[in-house]
């Protein structure tokens, strides 16, 4: 008896302890985190914004519709290219080199790719497409290979001995996973729309650019119009995105983008970028045979690491840690809002609306808006990342607990008691798994919001790019990459040791009849 009891108790205790450690770290970080309200008069600003949002101004509709079309075009081309590359890489994902390449590609955020590529291809369609396609290829390769691995292996085993690998793949492996491929690609397209909109913040002509322009001029009515157009695009994606039309869409998108007028780049930009710009300055300027060159390289690395990488990394991790906790709180409060037995019919309606807005607004856009209100400190970043990721976790938990609720005894209680006694204890493991899963994504996002002027890694990357010191930017991006990979490893280990691996964080793909998009299952 004792053995059984101790074995059964071990896990929950481990989970609660882990939660406490995570919250404890966040509490310890609070004093060092810069959470001032740095804005001039946040309430007045909020009031002006609120007024603008209530009175959308659609007078800029021609430029808005052009930006919307380009947003969709970038998303379509970027996702199509990424999916194609990922599809070709997926069967090879087991090989170390391919896997490492994919991990590296997806550990760098789309926006970082964009500002890096801009050094070579300028403010062009190529930059926008590749900025989406490169990280997405890494993600697609991973997810597609997982779907292939999870598919029924028996048909492949039943193939005649001596059948070639290509024939086996197309007859006995691909058909078993192709539906999941399609559904996942559609889900990615939704992510692609968000990313594409955000690319506007670094200068590409998408909705983010319009948003930025109107915000700078304080034209909040026009800002509201941009947001409405954006939400309409996201909300109607299931209506206009049809598989048979996909090739036509992609061709049309390529045609639209090919007409994009872009500032010309000097010839030989790629060679200059690879052979000159990204080479650390001391190596570029000194003779490689001279020991003094290598000394100055050491100093270059040391200074960069101490003055930029370390403070940036620390700020990134602090923001991420606080944001994870906030996301957890938002999720725990938010997901019961999706359950009718807990909050009633009207409550569910508002819950859905709030969570849909929270999760379909890109975290970068949210941080941007928060920054306008609260001024430059870690606070807007923490709030933006916490809200966005919290809404995503809440959405997933809501879905899972709807299933739980359906299977409950008929005389289960309702309202808060149902939530606290029946649902929360059952969902706790999945909740933790999702938080761990989002943790890595939040670190990536915390780095990127630095571009807005918050002291995370992105801040230093942005500054280096502005000073046209691409070598420094690349060094800092490598640090970002390493940090993301380490966090990913910690997260995976923690989930495994708590017995939280598997289905809870995988994209819960809809069944054939269902036909809905999968949720925002992480993997973002």
């Amino acid at each position, binding site marked *: 008896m004792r053995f059984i009891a101790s074995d059964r108790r071990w896990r929950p205790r481990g989970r609660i302890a882990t939660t406490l450690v995570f919250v404890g770290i966040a509490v310890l970080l609070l004093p060092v985190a810069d959470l001032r309200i740095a804005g001039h008069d946040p309430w007045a600003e909020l009031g002006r914004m609120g007024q603008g949002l209530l009175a959308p101004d659609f007078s800029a509709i021609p430029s808005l519709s052009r930006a919307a079309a380009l947003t969709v075009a970038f998303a379509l081309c970027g996702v199509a290219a990424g999916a194609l590359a990922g599809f070709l890489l997926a069967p090879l994902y087991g090989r170390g080199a391919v896997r490492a390449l994919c991990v590296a590609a997806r550990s760098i955020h789309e926006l970082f790719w964009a500002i890096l590529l801009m050094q070579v291809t300028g403010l062009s369609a190529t930059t926008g497409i590749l900025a989406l396609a490169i990280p997405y290829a890494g993600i697609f390769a991973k997810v597609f290979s997982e779907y292939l691995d999870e598919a029924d292996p028996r*048909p492949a*085993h*039943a*193939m005649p001995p001596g059948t*070639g690998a*290509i024939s086996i793949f197309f*007859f006995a492996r691909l058909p*078993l996973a192709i539906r999941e491929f399609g559904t996942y690609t559609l889900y990615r397209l939704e992510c692609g729309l968000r990313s594409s909109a955000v690319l506007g913040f670094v200068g590409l002509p998408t909705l983010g650019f319009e948003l930025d322009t109107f915000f700078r001029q304080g034209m909040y009515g026009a800002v509201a119009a941009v947001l409405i157009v954006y939400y309409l695009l996201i909300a109607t994606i299931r209506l206009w995105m049809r598989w048979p039309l996909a090739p036509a869409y992609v061709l049309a998108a390529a045609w639209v983008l090919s007409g994009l007028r872009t500032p010309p780049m000097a010839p030989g930009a790629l060679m200059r970028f690879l052979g000159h710009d990204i080479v650390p300055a001391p190596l570029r300027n000194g003779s490689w045979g001279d020991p003094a060159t290598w000394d100055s390289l050491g100093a270059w690395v040391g200074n960069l690491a101490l003055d930029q990488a370390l403070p940036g990394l620390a700020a990134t991790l602090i923001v991420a840690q606080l944001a994870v906790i906030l996301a957890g709180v938002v999720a725990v409060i938010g997901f019961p809002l999706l359950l009718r037995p807990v909050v009633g019919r009207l409550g569910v309606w508002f819950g859905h609306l709030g969570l849909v807005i929270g999760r379909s607004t890109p975290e970068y856009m949210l941080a941007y808006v928060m920054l306008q209100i609260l001024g430059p400190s870690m606070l807007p970043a923490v709030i933006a990342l916490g809200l966005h990721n919290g809404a995503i976790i809440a959405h997933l938990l809501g879905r899972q607990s709807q299933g739980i609720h359906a299977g409950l005894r008929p005389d289960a209680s309702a309202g808060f008691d149902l939530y606290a006694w029946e649902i929360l204890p059952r969902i706790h493991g999945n909740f933790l798994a999702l938080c761990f899963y989002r943790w890595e994504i939040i670190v990536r996002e915390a780095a990127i919001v630095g571009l807005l002027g918050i002291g995370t890694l992105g801040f230093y990357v942005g500054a280096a790019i502005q000073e046209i010191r691409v070598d420094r930017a690349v060094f800092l991006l490598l640090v970002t990459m390493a940090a993301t990979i380490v966090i990913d490893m910690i997260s995976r280990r923690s989930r495994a040791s708590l017995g939280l691996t598997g289905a809870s964080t995988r994209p819960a793909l809809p069944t054939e009849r269902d036909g809905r998009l999968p949720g925002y299952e992480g993997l973002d």
Partner: protein
Amino acid sequence: MLHLQGETLGYGGHVVLPDVDFALHPGERVVLLGRSGSGKSTLLNAVHARLAAQGRRDLALVPQEHGLVPQLSVFHNVYMGRLDRHRAAYNLVNLVWPLAAERRQVEDALRAVGLAGMGRRPLGALSGGQKQRTALARAVHRGGAVLIGDEPVSAVDERHAAELVAMLGQRFRTMVLALHDVALARLIATRIVGIRKGRLVIDKPASRVGKDEIDALYRL
């Protein structure tokens, strides 16, 4: 053609049949009998793996769970029996657009198992018995000298099962089948192997196997 002597068979580090002696000669029709879980599938898989490892290509297999691809049509599933005969490019053409010549040959195999004219049906729309017939058609389409079948007619009714097994007997010179229907086994087998609790307790010509010996196999 095959001789296992004192071998230990199992899967994933789990021993199912310790110390197996089993030989297979050309022209034999061996039927394996025994309760479920006794090790019939393990022996069949080992026989198939050994014969394949000898480099034999004239082998056809009907695995227990069929190994069909539900997302593809009946034609495609049957065509897969000959994937190794063609180049990948030719296979891909037939995946996208089945060629008339291949369709005709597959239709022959379908007719043999009673599924004539059903090549275009998606496999997922078939009944359990029809799926099993598709798996048989794949083996028939493949052809060859040896058939390894794990309960190949378990999902069709008795009368059709006898017809199908007889049809297989005409097309494959050597067969090793696991069956649960003793009457059917007596009908087709030249040799009966009885497995009980991981041991081959019967292994002799079908005509010399008595009723009580077989009853003993299934006793608790």
